[in-house]
């Protein structure tokens, strides 16, 4: 059962990503974790495409393009964060506190 293992891999990658997003304090680490989550989706796409057919590979290309743009925006935000607080620890930005 190839598909099952591949999907488990995707789920594992996704969970590690979530864990990273929730636990990392530094913005760059959070961005990396987000990349992991996106790639979990990509793995699932490719797994389905090769084993079941369908346009999954095309969607992976789209996904990669979007992820790259997202990283560009994310790194810009990290720069701003650093400029503003002198560090890239996410918990410093708490202006939205109620």
């Amino acid at each position, binding site marked *: 059962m190839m598909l099952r293992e591949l999907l488990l891999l995707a789920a594992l990658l996704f969970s590690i990503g*979530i864990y990273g*997003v*929730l*636990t990392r304090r530094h913005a760059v680490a*959070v961005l990396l974790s987000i990349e992991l989550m996106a790639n979990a989706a990509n793995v699932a796409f490719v797994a389905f495409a090769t084993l079941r057919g369908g346009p999954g590979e095309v969607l992976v290309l789209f996904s990669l393009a979007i992820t790259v743009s997202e990283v560009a925006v994310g790194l810009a935000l990290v720069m701003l964060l650093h400029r503003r607080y002198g560090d890239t620890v*996410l*918990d410093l*930005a*708490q*202006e*939205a*506190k*109620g």
Partner: protein
Amino acid sequence: MNTPGTPELLGLLALLAPAAAALVLGVVPWLRRSGGAAAVVAIAGSTVALVAAVAVLAQRAGGGPDVLWTVSWLEAGGRGLARVGVRLDGVSVPMLAVVTFVALAVQVYSVAYMHAETARSYGRYFAYHALFLFSMNLLVLAPNLLQAFAGWELVGVTSYLLIGFHFDRPSAARAAVKAFWMTKLADMGFLFALLLLYTAGGSFEWTASLRPAVAGAVTALLFIAVVGKSAQFPLHIWLPDAMEGPTPVSALLHAATMVAAGVYLVVRADPLFAQAPATREVMLFLGAGTAAFAALLALVQTDIKRMLAFSTCSQLGFMVAALGAGSAFAGFFHLGTHAFFKALLFLAAGSVIHAVHSNELSQMGGLRRRMPLTTVVFAIGALSLAGIPGFAGFASKDTVIGAVEGQGGGVPYFLLLGTAFVTALYMGRALLRAFFGPPCAAAAHAHEPPLSMTAPLVLLAIPSVLAGLLGGWLARSVGAEYHLHLAPTPVLAAALSLAGLLLAVALFRQGRPAPLAAFLERADRASLVDRSWALLYRQVLIRVADVSRWVDRYLVDGLMNGIGWSTLETGSAVRPVQTGRMRDYVFAVMVGALLLAWIGGFR
């Protein structure tokens, strides 16, 4: 909307000329504050109204038809709530003529009478007068009860404004509030009558035909409003106090026109009242009772204006009794003649007050040498009011008593005959006290008022004598029968009036007190009706108002404030959820996603 023809245009002119004057005086402050110019504007409006009214009258006298011109009002769903406009027929046209004539006479008289006022309040006075004439004409020309109600309330407001004209005098302010309060209480009857009429009949027409029970309720409610406006027992108490207003106001509003609006309303709504014999029965007794009661109190008044006010109550009682006897014509006829001679009496009293600077009969006396013209016109008014043959009051009062007799006589009939006697007695008393007898201190300096005041007196004196001759014409106009004939009742009434006058001469030349004076004075001072209302007001109404205030402040406002407060508190309580930390939000999103997935797994 149809285009109005000539009579409709004249009717509209009579309505809108005073409205225009009131509007101009209302929105152009410098004109109102200029004083004299304001008087010119108001009097111009009234003159146009009078000319229009006379033209309509002439047209009708020449055989013109009834005219109804209306536009739809408050349209909703393609159907108007009611129609408003002018109705010119045998009832409204004579009334319009009387109202505009007396109003113009009073306004001209006021020009000199009010000259001591500051320019500001002088202008305000005439602005109110213009507003009053518009309101009264709105009521008189009303094609249905709804427009009549609008006019009815507006004359109530102008009455309040004019009674409280000298609002810096506490007694005047109190009197104004009292008049407003009492009439407003009664006006609730009108409002409920309108609601009932519309619910039951679907219209506000004067001629709606109703089920007997509904007709009884509608007319009874309307009659409550009439009792208030026309100062009948037990709501009459505001009228003597209303004498705090300037004397010309008393003449116009509180003698000739506004207080007669109640009577006019019943005449107008005669088709409704004809369906309610029980209401008429009550009106007959209440009217006759008020006539007698107020006449007796008039006998012991020391203030000439209060005396005339009680006399007005009494005469309105005659009219109401006539309406109760089913003779709208008799009531209407007496309304017309009374408007002339009572306005005359008030204006003549005004020129006496002007001369001696007091309302008290005891401060007057012997004025006939210094003020011969005023004496003559006051005497004409007094004799007309007393119902002496040859004067207008005789013809109309006899019609009233005859109508009551035709209804079966009984107690009201004898009450009215007795009242005719007392009326002559108290008018004789006032006449002798003010103009004859030993001259008072002020008599030496008293002088006739200027021409602008005497001219209206003379103009009112003429119809006070001759208006009785119009009885036959007026009867045809309203569709009733009238003929003066030698029957026991008119002779008896005339004899009683003459006897009253002779007794007055016999008693009051020597300055002796009126019969029953001690008892009546005590009754007047005790003023039980007044006190009962005061008690009701203080003990019941104020308490109810306090409870309402409490309910409003703590329950109604409390509910609203509570909703607002709890919203704020809930907001404060859940505020910490928004930590501002990114990871918490992401965590919430994850939990939400898992929750959705979990729920989805179950389906």
